[in-house]
């Protein structure tokens, strides 16, 4: 800030990095943005609890399992974050993920006429996902049918499509190694270390780039302590995960895929004009329209992202089982993905949230599921626990928003 009065935030920044960070977080909280802190705290508490209760929980093998179990839900939840940012909902993602699984399974099948390799099958499934999203998004954006109804219809339609496609056999096995490797390939020890190095390097380069461009523009470069602290945490997490995984089968490719997707979509959401416009439409669609943003186009694109990510998540889920059957896309897939995005800190009211919420929320849900399984609890405990956490997350979101409304802003 170049004007006369120094801000409280700046003053805090002069006093020290951590109090500045705390102050900045409080500012965001006041603006109705809960951020990632509550979910990270919850995740640490959950991990500590199950590590204490079960001797198997904090082992390398279980760690590998947990990553693969989380991957599908996390990937689907990334699409949900975008839809929620618009203030819309997509109920079709469960069965669209099933459609994704069915398409790759069908296309890789031996003895049929279509001779697609694994990659070809995946690409075709993703394109199908984009088309499904474009269709559903068009009803929402162009005709203004509520997204709840459009995607509820989608839920039924794609469920029917799966039943029709699988027919009387009801199951297709996946023999194609390329597809199965999406969920079953583990990186070598060296590759794992190199990858951790790449992740840390990417963060450092990003931080340095931002520092240089701000410095060049003559802007306040912020507090270095915090940036360094964040960098160190990322390095500890990246190398820590690789170290643990290398004690078992190595880093699962599915985990790498999730991290890469979270990185890519975070970049799209926070650094590109498209991402900015998604936040704008979710915050105030009329303001976005008057600012010359093509609101309908943004909405359609977001539903395309949602369906495409659902398909990709469905492929991971199918690859993990090496098959698809009549239950593809059913069960808790839809609710887990939406709950993951919300528990991760994405507001249901639009305009507030981060892509990383998908991963954090999915980790919470799947860690609880995994931990409760290990200590021998039955399904009802899982359901109730996840339900309570979801309710807490939504309550936190609603309360922080209401505070905002009450202060008359």
């Amino acid at each position: 800030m170049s004007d006369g009065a120094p801000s409280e935030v700046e003053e805090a920044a002069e006093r020290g990095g951590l109090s500045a960070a705390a102050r900045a977080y409080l500012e965001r909280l006041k603006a109705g943005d809960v951020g990632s802190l509550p979910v990270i705290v919850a995740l640490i508490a959950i991990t500590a609890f199950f590590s204490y209760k079960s001797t198997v929980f904090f082992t390398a093998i279980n760690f590998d399992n947990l990553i693969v179990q989380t991957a599908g839900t996390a990937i689907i939840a990334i699409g949900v974050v975008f839809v929620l940012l618009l203030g819309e909902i997509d109920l079709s993602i469960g069965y669209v993920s099933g459609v994704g699984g069915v398409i790759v399974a069908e296309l890789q099948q031996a003895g049929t006429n279509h001779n697609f390799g694994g990659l070809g099958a995946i690409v075709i499934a993703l394109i199908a996902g984009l088309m499904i999203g474009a269709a559903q998004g068009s009803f929402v954006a162009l005709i203004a049918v509520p997204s709840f109804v459009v995607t509820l219809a989608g839920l039924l339609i794609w469920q029917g499509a799966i039943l029709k496609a699988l027919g009387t056999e009801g199951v297709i096995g996946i023999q194609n190694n390329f597809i199965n490797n999406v969920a079953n390939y583990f990186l070598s020890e060296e590759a794992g270390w190199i990858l951790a190095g790449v992740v840390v390097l990417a963060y450092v380069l990003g931080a340095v780039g931002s520092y240089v461009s701000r410095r060049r523009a003559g802007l306040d470069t912020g507090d270095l302590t915090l940036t360094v602290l964040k960098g160190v945490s990322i390095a500890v997490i990246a190398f820590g995960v690789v170290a643990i995984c290398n004690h078992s089968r190595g880093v699962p490719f599915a985990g790498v895929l999730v991290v890469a997707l979270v990185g890519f979509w975070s970049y799209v959401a926070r650094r590109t004009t498209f991402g900015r416009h998604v936040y704008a439409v979710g915050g105030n669609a009329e303001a976005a329209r008057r600012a010359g943003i093509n609101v309908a186009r943004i909405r359609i694109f977001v539903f395309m992202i949602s369906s495409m990510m659902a398909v990709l998540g469905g492929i991971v889920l199918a690859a993990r089982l090496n098959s698809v059957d009549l239950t593809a896309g059913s069960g808790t897939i839809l609710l887990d993905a939406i709950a993951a995005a919300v528990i991760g800190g994405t507001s249901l009211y639009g305009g507030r949230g981060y892509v990383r919420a998908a991963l954090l929320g999915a980790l919470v849900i799947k860690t609880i599921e995994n931990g409760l399984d290990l200590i021998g609890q039955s399904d009802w405990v899982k359901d109730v626990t996840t339900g309570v956490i979801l309710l807490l997350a939504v309550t936190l979101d609603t309360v922080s928003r209401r505070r905002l409304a009450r202060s008359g802003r």
Partner: protein
Amino acid sequence: MADVPTLELRNVSKSFGSVQALVDVDFDVHDGEVMALVGDNGAGKSTLIKSIAGIHPFDSGEVLFEGSRVNIHGPKEAARLGIEVVYQDLALCDNLDVVQNMYLGREAHDLFQRMREAEMEKRTAETLKSLSVTTIRSVRQTVATLSGGQRQSVAVARAVMWNSRLVILDEPTAALGVAQTHQVLELVKRLAEQGLAVIIISHNLTDVFEVADRISVLRLGRNVGVYDRKASTQESIISAITVGAPIKAAAIAGNGETRL
């Protein structure tokens, strides 16, 4: 005051079906001038500014921008000419910060659609400083945390950042407290001092008399007259708004024009 008006309307009319919203209205505003547009509800103020902004073009009449005839078909055309409108509801996104709102829809970006954050933040701070908006602590705080006056300041600053020539403010002080109203009116004066043409719509004649150089009164879609602020009283304007004629003929604008 320059000889050529920044914007001049000659005999413009606009109707919606059988409703005549504007009938043969004349209007002009010059660089460095604050022109107030007043009138009762249904007088045609909103229709007039929406037509200037290109939302629904005039049916007939001439529009001259800096002396040359123009046709404003849409908001983009208006923006290209340098006409910016700050609507009453401000059209800000609460969830975005000041910089993000200032650049909404016109983000500075490179070939890969990646935004140039540092550049945008720098120019936002500069623009706010040039308008002496000092109450906003950080340009990186979300608009949700700003007061009504600060939000109005952001909306106005956004309008002037784009090489604009004419800024139209729709009820900028409605719903503001005393101190904040003062803050916004000071900002309006500063816009004119910087050489912009300013049109302000307001129901509050105290505010109008504080900032306006001239006052244009509309009644039932027609001109009542243009009054020099220094030569008018609030009573004469009220009578022009309600009855259609000023109490004292002497109050009619200095350049001798009488429009009835």
